[in-house]
């Protein structure tokens, strides 16, 4: 699928997803007097949560059923070898032989995106020379995006807990460090927008990336951008009735759902898009949140030269030992004058 078709498809999908709650919560009551807040405020979020949890467990169990009999880590350093060949800290992380090394490697991978940090991009220089260039911007945008998303999710705990856990006000304080505008601007909301824009432009402006990008790549970017956009609109521009919203969210969390009056349609659009993100999650590339832990190229130690790994599902092989073979053919072998290890039974017994 080419870039324009992908963009139209995923952009169209997002427009429809925005239009559905808008029509249902804003237009329907005005034209037909039908109220569907319960559907978008209660039923769809619960359904999305069920799909999210069941889907993730299903995917993880499916992955867990795939056998990984042999050690296939991607190794980026010298293997543990003879004592006089250097095997230092870098080697322990990049070519681990112990669980501790693997854990260290995984921590750096999950928290710092180390492999992305180390990745280079290949370009042709003058005269067709191959050049490997550092590509830290991708790493920067990725890490800014992920940590901003984490901060935003943790900030949203103020709607889902009562009283708030101690870390929420601390996060809010750090996030609103510059204390400008009212309500105080949280950097994370705008940084995530900038990072997502970079990740989107990267796909659009690089011909090679544009060629391999699919709707499955554009759709999550558009979806998260729209969620961030509606959130920013609600907080800074159009405003929302936060007390009623918290009544709704607390109702969801405590399984005593209520639909308070006076919540704007923008909130229902935001909530519907978040529900779509949750429901879409298990079927999409976003599953890398669980997949990173289950990557055999990351989570295995490179101890093939130290431990013998036997394929656990090898079928039992039918073997025919020499002893059994000789038992079968001993007399014929003796007849033909071939040497045997065990002499034939004495014919005298039979007489």
């Amino acid at each position: 699928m080419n870039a324009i078709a992908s963009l139209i498809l995923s952009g169209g999908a997002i427009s429809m997803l925005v239009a559905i709650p808008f029509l249902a919560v804003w237009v329907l009551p005005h034209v037909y007097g039908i109220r569907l807040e319960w559907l978008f405020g209660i039923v769809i979020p619960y359904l999305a949560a069920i799909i999210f949890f069941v889907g993730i467990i299903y995917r993880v169990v499916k992955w867990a059923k795939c056998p990984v009999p042999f050690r296939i880590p991607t190794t980026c350093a010298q293997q543990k070898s003879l004592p006089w060949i250097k095997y230092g800290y870098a080697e322990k992380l990049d070519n681990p032989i112990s669980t501790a090394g693997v854990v260290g490697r995984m921590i750096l991978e999950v928290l710092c995106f180390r492999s992305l940090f180390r990745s280079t991009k290949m370009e042709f220089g003058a005269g067709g020379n191959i050049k490997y260039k550092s590509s830290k911007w991708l790493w920067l945008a990725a890490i800014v995006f992920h940590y901003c998303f984490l901060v935003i999710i943790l900030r949203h705990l103020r709607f889902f807990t009562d009283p708030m856990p101690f870390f929420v006000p601390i996060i809010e304080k750090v996030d609103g460090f510059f204390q400008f505008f009212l309500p105080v601007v949280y950097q994370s909301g705008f940084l995530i927008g900038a990072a997502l824009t970079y990740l989107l432009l990267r796909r659009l402006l690089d011909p090679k990336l544009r060629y391999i990008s699919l709707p499955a790549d554009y759709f999550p970017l558009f979806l998260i951008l729209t969620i961030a956009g509606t959130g920013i609109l609600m907080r800074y521009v159009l405003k929302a009735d936060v007390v009623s919203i918290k009544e709704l969210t607390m109702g969801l969390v405590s399984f005593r759902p209520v639909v308070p009056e006076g919540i704007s349609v923008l909130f229902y659009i935001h909530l519907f898009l978040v529900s779509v993100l949750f429901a879409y999650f298990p079927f999409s590339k976003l599953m890398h949140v669980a997949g990173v832990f289950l990557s055999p190229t990351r989570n295995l130690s490179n101890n093939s030269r130290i431990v013998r790994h036997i394929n656990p599902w090898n079928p039992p092989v039918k073997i025919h030992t020499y002893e059994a073979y000789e038992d079968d053919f001993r007399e014929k072998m003796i007849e033909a004058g071939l040497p045997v290890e065990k002499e034939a039974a004495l014919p005298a017994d039979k007489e």
Partner: protein
Amino acid sequence: MYDGGKIITGVIIGLVFMTFPIWYTSGRAAKKPDIKLPVKEKQCVEPKEYMRVKHMQLLDLWRDSVVRVAQRSYVAFNGVKYDMSLQNTCISADCHAKKTEFCDQCHNYTGVVPYCWDCHIEPKEEPAEKPQAEEKH
């Protein structure tokens, strides 16, 4: 399933984290804000629906107007003139007399910490009344 023990442990840890709000909140009834509305005054400077969602922007506007332009008079939506003052107009005896019975109700419920009181001195309530009377003697 291969490495089932490790993977199931990981899934359970993930589930515990992701369902944090459910088990953190369970058993604790969320108390809704109980706002005490003024008895005497019936109309705020703007309609209730506006004040519910945009009072902070109005107060921000008032602050800028008073502190930066020295303009203290606010013409309300119904033409009535008010003095732009958080402590003398909003938190006056006739209106939202007690911060704890009005402002704090929703702010605490939704975890909002407005920075009004970085500059303004928080109005003292009940226990403050007696010492003030004693000072006069």
